[in-house]
């Protein structure tokens, strides 16, 4: 049982028209592990993530979660154990901060009393370093860093088993990026969750990752522990990690 990977992808392919974004992605993430997918823009990182969540249906290949095959029919069931932090936060701007965080608890199966849901939301906000005074603000009234924190609080609100982070530090200043990285690491470790992050921020990679996968031209070019990224011996990883203009990755994409 412990050998069953939390997430396993085999030969996942996806094309949009004549554009082959994924050409057979193989990846496994063990339970409680933090995998970071790196790669340039437009190399299919987001599409990979969206395939696992079920937002995009792959053309070919298999995705197993906890050893169970993901199909269009059961994709909805897995969502209960997922949490996701979106690049821009993706907070619902018609709702207050606490209603965003407690979204799952205000409707549907896990419904709580409004006051209880609010208390829960404030607890989660505190966990990501925001005071109770932010609870009644609207997302538009928050700074970018605070929106990321609220997004993080919403992602972890229902104690997910798997958390996805889509470019968690994009658009933040270096100090705020560092704070968010630390927060992500702490929370993932403390919740014992499996994490999958996509980013092109190397500082982020070194902070968050247990393992790293390099995606380029729709396939995983290299996969290994984070300690090895500086001496991976892989020309793609070498070029990307050091930000070199010359190498197998064309600068013009």
């Amino acid at each position, binding site marked *: 049982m412990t050998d069953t990977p939390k997430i396993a992808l085999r030969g996942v392919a996806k094309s949009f028209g004549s554009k082959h974004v994924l050409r057979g992605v193989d990846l496994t993430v063990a339970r409680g592990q933090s995998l970071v997918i790196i790669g340039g823009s437009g190399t299919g990182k987001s599409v990979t993530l969206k395939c696992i969540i079920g937002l995009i249906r792959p053309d070919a290949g298999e995705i197993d979660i906890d050893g169970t095959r993901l199909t269009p029919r059961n994709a909805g069931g897995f*969502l209960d154990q997922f949490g996701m932090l979106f690049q821009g936060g993706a907070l619902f701007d018609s709702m207050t901060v606490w209603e965003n965080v407690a979204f799952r608890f205000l409707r549907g199966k896990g419904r709580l009393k409004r006051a209880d849901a609010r208390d829960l939301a404030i607890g989660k906000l505190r966990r990501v370093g925001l005071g109770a005074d932010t609870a009644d603000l609207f997302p538009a009234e928050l700074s970018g860093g605070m929106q990321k924190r609220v997004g993080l609080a919403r992602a972890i609100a229902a104690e997910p088993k798997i958390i996805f982070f889509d470019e968690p530090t994009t658009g933040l200043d270096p100090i705020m990026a560092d704070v968010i990285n630390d927060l992500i690491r702490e929370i993932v470790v403390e919740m014992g969750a499996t994490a999958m992050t996509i980013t092109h921020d190397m500082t982020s990679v070194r902070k968050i990752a247990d393992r790293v996968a390099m995606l380029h031209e729709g396939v995983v070019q290299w996969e290994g522990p984070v300690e090895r990224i500086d001496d991976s011996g892989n020309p793609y990883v070498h070029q990307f990690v050091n930000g070199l203009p010359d190498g197998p990755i064309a600068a013009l994409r």
Partner: protein
Amino acid sequence: MSQVLTAGQMFLAGIGRAVLGLCRSTGALVLFALQAVAGILVPPFYGIEFLRQMMRIGYFSLPVVGLTALFTGGALALQIYAGGSRFNAESAVPSIVAIGMVRELGPVLCGLMVAGRVGASIAAEIGSMRVTEQIDALTTLSTNPIKFLVAPRVLAGTLAMPLLTAVSDIIGVMGGFFVGTSRLGIASGNYIQNTLDYLTAGDVVSSLVKGAVFGFIIAVVGCFEGYNSGRGAQGVAQATRAAVVTSSILILAANYLLTEVFFST
């Protein structure tokens, strides 16, 4: 020769592409509408969202719809009086205003105004939710965006529009009444009696059915365009424009078909 042929082929290919594109988007719109209806019929239901949309689509459209109907009814009375006097048909003013407003202008103008006001705002709202990944975020929070966003709007549109149409009909007739009694010298008692004599229950029913159909069209098209919005501000702008244009044309086409169904003998 081959040059001409290629140009000709390109022309034909262009037509073919346009036709295929039209078929594709029509099919997508119909499938979307079916999903929306399924979302209305199958739980979970989002009652608060529905009530919020009723307020937005119904209540807040009242001023626009009322003013449109008032001025149209008044202008109609003036026109019929001016035109009718050539045949000594001034006495037909109340009945023609009533029938014209209730059968045609009430629902159609109400539909077009709401398409501009509500259809555009639905498309812009859902379009920006698409662009900022809020729709994807809904899915990751185990919430079906069709049920949460689309179904309440479509249901509210379908139920609010007949009410708005009724208001539009009444205020339109009232506009004719004001002009008829104050400017054209028709006795108010006669005006009301004449209106009641000519207006049948069938006229009112057809008016309300048209309203419901137009409301459905406005909400479905607004949601559809927003839901499939392209990227960025430009994508949202295009979705908004497409929502207003498509729903306006569909309203006018549906109006013709419904008139055919109700009144052709």
